[in-house]
């Protein structure tokens, strides 16, 4: 009986894992294959990696009149049109490339992907740092200090958790526009500096910190702000890790808000905006480079998670304290 139970449990978990992994598999697979293989749905995971011709490369290197004139000495016996044909053949030969390399090279060349990744780092890093600077003292006050109206303030924090971001996006946008901050890093960062979720999460964690520890810190001569940074922050590292996952993942992957406040200035694009470079246009869809971009965007998060996996899980279960 229990063996059958175990079997179903594992079958269910495997099914769940399968559903989660399939889109990632598809993304990585497409990022490696040639357009023809993608369209026909052949080639398995890697594709055949047969050499393909990069049409854009050919397009930008098409020989013109000057090239033909210059090449006349190399092909003394041929007519102009034949020279053109030969040159074109040569260009096509030079533009042959493996599909995987083509996809990833286009991702970095067509879109300044490194710039986008750097922007992503600056924006998510600043947001997280500012959120911590705001949330820790607020959470400390809400959990450990007695003051008039504390419960009301905490009630407001809970209430704010219920407000969807999209509902207040327009007023926020107008406010930032009036301040002249559209198309700046500030527009990407400022609206997220106060995280009620962060305040709530850290408050719940601080509730578990013994009062005696804070009393001891006061006896040792610490003021309240010193207590926040020298005692509460270090003991809250596991909880901060959990919050970091939520915050960084949410803002690294955010498409909605950057799309609103960054209009046109490509040097401010965050990684998800980079995907727009390959949206379907006259050339047809460039799924390969698009999926290569997507792979590059999610890789830092996955690598960071794998590196700090133990700490993260510790943080989510909030068991690192005792």
């Amino acid at each position: 009986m229990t063996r059958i139970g175990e079997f179903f449990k594992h079958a269910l978990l495997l099914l769940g894992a399968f559903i989660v992994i399939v889109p990632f598999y598809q993304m990585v697979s497409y990022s490696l294959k040639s357009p023809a293989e993608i369209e026909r749905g052949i080639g398995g995971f890697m594709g055949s990696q047969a050499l393909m011709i990069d049409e854009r490369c050919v397009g930008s290197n098409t020989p013109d009149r000057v090239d033909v004139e210059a090449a006349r000495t190399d092909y003394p016996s041929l007519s102009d049109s034949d020279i053109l044909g030969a040159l074109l053949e040569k260009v096509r030969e030079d533009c042959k490339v493996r599909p995987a390399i083509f996809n990833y090279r286009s991702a970095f060349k067509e879109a300044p992907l490194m710039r986008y990744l750097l922007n992503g780092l600056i924006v998510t890093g600043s947001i997280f740092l500012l959120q911590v600077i705001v949330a820790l003292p607020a959470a400390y006050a809400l959990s450990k200090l007695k003051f008039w109206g504390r419960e009301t303030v905490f009630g407001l924090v809970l209430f704010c958790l219920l407000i969807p971001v999209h509902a207040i996006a327009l007023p926020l946008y107008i406010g930032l526009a009036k301040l002249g901050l559209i198309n700046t890093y500030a527009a990407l960062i400022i609206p997220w500096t106060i995280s009620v979720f962060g305040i709530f999460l850290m408050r719940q964690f601080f509730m578990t910190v013994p009062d005696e520890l804070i009393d001891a810190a006061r006896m040792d001569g610490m003021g309240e702000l010193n207590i926040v940074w020298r005692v509460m922050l270090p003991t809250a590292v596991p909880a901060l890790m959990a919050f970091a996952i939520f915050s960084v993942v949410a803002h690294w992957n955010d498409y909605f808000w950057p799309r609103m406040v960054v209009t046109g200035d490509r040097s401010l694009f965050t990684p998800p905006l980079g995907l727009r470079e390959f949206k379907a246009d006259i050339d047809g869809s460039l799924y390969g480079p698009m999926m290569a971009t997507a792979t590059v965007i999610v890789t830092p998060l996955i690598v960071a998670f794998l590196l700090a996996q133990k700490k993260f899980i510790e943080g989510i279960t909030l068991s690192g304290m005792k």
Partner: protein
Amino acid sequence: MAEVSIKGLHKAFGDVQILKGIELNIADGEFVSLVGPSGCGKSTLLRIIAGLEEESEGSISINNEPVSGIRASDRNLSMVFQSYALYPHLSVAENIAVPLQMRNLNGWQRLPLVGRFMSGAKARTQEITAAVMEAAQTLEIEALLKRKPGELSGGQRQRVALGRALVRKPAAFLLDEPLSNLDAKLRVHTRTEIAELHRKLGATFIYVTHDQVEAMTMSDRIAVMMGGEILQCAPPQIVYSDPNDLRVAEFIGSPKINVLPVEAGDEGRLSLMGRSLPLLAGSLRGPLQMALRPEMLTLSMVDPMLKGRVVHLEHLGSELFAQIVIEDLGVRLVIRADPAKYEALKPDLHVGMNFDPNAALFFDANGKRIRQVVPAKQLAEAV
């Protein structure tokens, strides 16, 4: 070094009166225990002295300076907590250094990484390291300095907490049930160590405990607290042998003191279960309470004043306690007997007991001590 003086101290949480007019003067270098059952307000009193809690009324002076409104961090007191309250992320050495860093370094010098390059930081840091070493040597924990609190046993954490308290040579030490998280054996050992530490440092110690044995063994004076009041504050032997209040007599001493109802009749003559005692209670009349320590009672078959039935025996090796029920009164007494009599005593055995009436303590119906009971000139006849 400090005298602590508390005058008319009241504390209320909402409508609940926790402290009701505490008066206490603690001399420089004295070891005073605040002892009482849980909820008696002893910890609150300590926290008010520390400045962690604010008094509702009354005043506290340290070295004749009123400290009301002065923050805990500025009172120059050290506190040891029941849970030790060590900083879990800092090593033992860093834990002990914290009070000195907060007082002797300025904000810039305390900054992580860059702080050590600020002017004057190096000399101060060396002083702190030396002070930490000295404290560690006093408590014999040099070997632990690099460890984190999580890697220490309860007794070791206790020493680190003491080290953090004594490193900056405070005006007074406040200890809030520091031994209650230790196992019984270690508690006895650490008790002696704290008493020795007090003698070595000569500092003022205020020690909160619910364990009367701790209070008895360590203190110069014991303040017995109950219901938000200090019932008696006196040296341990006085509190034991000459309590002011029946509640004090019952709280101090283990096993608990025995209480028997007595009656003051004509001319103040006292009688127990209708049998006259050779004592006069002056002008008092009516029911009183007589209290006898277990060691005041002796087993006796010759004309016993009390007769009862053995219900339980506790053999502790060096002493034997017998619980004896006086069926006529429905009272259970504990008497200390010679362990050699263990074989002779059996449950359900009927025994007689005698005591020296002059040694007995008398209290009125409200538990206040009656000191006017005097021996009668001649033995009264049996009524």
